[in-house]
């Protein structure tokens, strides 16, 4: 395949031929000779097409945002000698090459092998594919190239960073029959003292309250507050309207990070957790217990990309039909439009206890721009509008207004099991 340089040289030669005819001057015709000779010489030695065996190895295939992965590419030449071959391993834009380079230019004898390494670090969570490897063999003249694309792909799954929210008190408000860690305000198996009752045959000896038995002169047993588990559904608002800021630090990315942290925290408390994501499609993970469920949620969250124009009230429809009644809804949304606010009111009216974690779009936008007195006024106005919206929502739900530059745990400090709005 000829390059654009060949066309340029042909153009120059043609121009000199035309000018010589125009001026009727044969000396000008001589100037067409160098490009013609160069083009002719370049055609004498053909460039062989690369025939390569390629193997790519990544030091890990599951990682989290900011972690580094070392990629090693081994290339073996199975064709004729390549005098100059450029090897270029395609890397998705979201992965930053932090060390080395996915590009090499070498000469390869028949059967010779070469390997090169580079380190990539993802900026945004997602599923990424390294490759294909493009090999471009070129001639010394630069007039001819032969390209081969080796369709070898390596998949990297990049999870969001897991925030430490161990001390947060986010848990389902209503409990079910299964044993868990939430004090249920009913008598049952647990660790906290609830009351006293007369001993009944079958009571464990360790539950006998000896002091009370001595005072009443009959056996008295302790009753404990039952510790049970509940259901929580995390709803992530990843609609196009809810997107503010550049993707790596957008409301959607922060929302996904918060969703993963909360899912992990609630699952640790032996509760069932489900997930609903509103994006281009409405996808959900049905509530379940345990570590496997965390991986299911993680897999769903990794694929979240902002988009979609669906009405947000579809979430209410899905929750009502497919999820347990009265489960704790944890809505993660920047609350940018009226629709999100109406949906919260609708959920509360249908009896769902709602907690809102809202990554503040105002703070995200503020971080994007330098300090400017004019912007300060705009910031104060937007801040006021948001505070009004949040106060209005506090009538229906527990709202966490989260500045994403701060740890989520700090924002969740104010969350209690029994909020004041009820």
């Amino acid at each position, binding site marked *: *395949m*000829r390059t654009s*340089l*060949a*066309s*340029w*040289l*042909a153009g*120059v*030669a*043609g121009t000199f*031929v*035309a*000018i*010589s*005819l125009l*001026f*009727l*001057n*044969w*000396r*000008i*015709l*001589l*100037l*067409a*000779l*160098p*490009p*013609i*000779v*160069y*083009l*002719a*010489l*370049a*055609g*004498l*030695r*053909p*460039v*062989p097409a690369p025939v390569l065996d390629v193997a790519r190895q990544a030091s890990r295939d599951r990682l989290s945002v900011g972690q580094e992965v070392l990629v090693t590419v081994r290339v073996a030449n199975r064709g*004729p000698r390549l*005098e*100059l071959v*450029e090897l270029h391993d395609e890397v998705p834009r979201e992965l930053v090459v932090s060390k*080395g*380079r996915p*590009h090499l*230019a*070498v*000469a390869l004898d028949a059967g010779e092998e*070469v*390997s*090169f390494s*580079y380190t990539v670090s993802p900026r945004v969570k997602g599923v990424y594919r390294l490759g294909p490897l493009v090999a471009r063999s*070129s001639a*010394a003249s*630069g007039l*001819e190239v032969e390209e081969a694309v080796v369709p070898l792909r390596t998949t990297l799954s990049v999870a969001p960073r897991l925030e430490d929210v161990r001390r947060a008190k986010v848990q389902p408000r209503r409990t079910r029959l299964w044993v868990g860690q939430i004090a249920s305000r009913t008598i049952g198996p647990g660790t906290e003292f609830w009351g006293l009752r007369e001993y009944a045959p079958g009571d464990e000896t360790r539950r006998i309250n000896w002091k009370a038995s001595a005072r009443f002169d009959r056996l008295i047993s302790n009753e404990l507050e039952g510790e049970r588990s509940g259901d929580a559904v995390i709803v992530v608002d990843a609609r196009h309207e809810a997107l503010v800021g550049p993707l790596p630090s957008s409301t959607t990315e922060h929302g996904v990070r918060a969703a993963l942290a909360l899912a992990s925290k609630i699952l640790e408390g032996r509760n069932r957790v489900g997930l609903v994501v509103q994006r281009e499609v409405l996808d959900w993970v049905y509530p379940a217990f345990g570590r496997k469920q965390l991986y299911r949620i993680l897999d769903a969250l990794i694929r979240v990309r902002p988009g979609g124009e669906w009405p947000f009230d579809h979430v209410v429809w899905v929750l009502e039909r497919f999820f347990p009644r009265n489960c704790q809804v944890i809505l993660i949304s920047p609350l940018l439009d009226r629709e999100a606010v109406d949906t919260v009111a609708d959920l509360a009216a249908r009896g769902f206890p709602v907690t809102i974690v809202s990554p503040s779009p105002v703070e995200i936008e503020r971080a994007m721009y330098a300090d400017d007195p004019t912007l300060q006024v705009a910031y104060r106005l937007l801040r006021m509008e948001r505070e009004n919206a949040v106060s209005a929502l506090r009538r229906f739900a527990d709202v966490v207004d989260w500045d994403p530059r701060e740890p989520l745990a700090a924002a969740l400090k104010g969350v209690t099991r029994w909020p004041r709005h009820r």
Partner: protein
Amino acid sequence: MRAAPLALFAGLLTWTAMDLARRAPPTAWAGGAPLLVVATAFEARALRTAEPASQRAARGLLGIVYFGVRLLWAGVDPLPMIAFLVLLMALASLQGLERTFAPVYGAMAGDPGVLAKVDAAAIAAYTRALALIAFTFVASLLLALLVPFAVLQITDLVAATGLALALLLVIAWLALAPSTPPRRG
């Protein structure tokens, strides 16, 4: 790697500026000098961005000014003009190799095995490219001695036009035709 094409560009720029100053009338300077400044600006931009389009534009402007001065005022002198054209082609070739190797060297810290292979490939590629350019120059000069014998026989316009068209066809074929297929076996 970056110094060689830069030095060559500076040399060609000086040559063109001297030609413009010595051989063209002052009225031509008004057109030629700004073009040279623009060519320098394109080259400076290409230094930062390594854009092939800027490099092409800089080379093109340099060629337009040099050959413009020669064709319009100084008169056609084939030897220096062929030399200038070959040097311009050498500049294109060196810039192409720079685009290939400079990024590779920029990121090759601490891998001596691969670095040695890249070194060997770079030395071989530069040698071949410069040898090809030198051969092109010599072959063009030899052909320049032979062409007049054929061309001066043509005295009428129809034959001259026919020769020009034939040459244009050869040029088009050379630019578009795939190279000779490799031998098998």
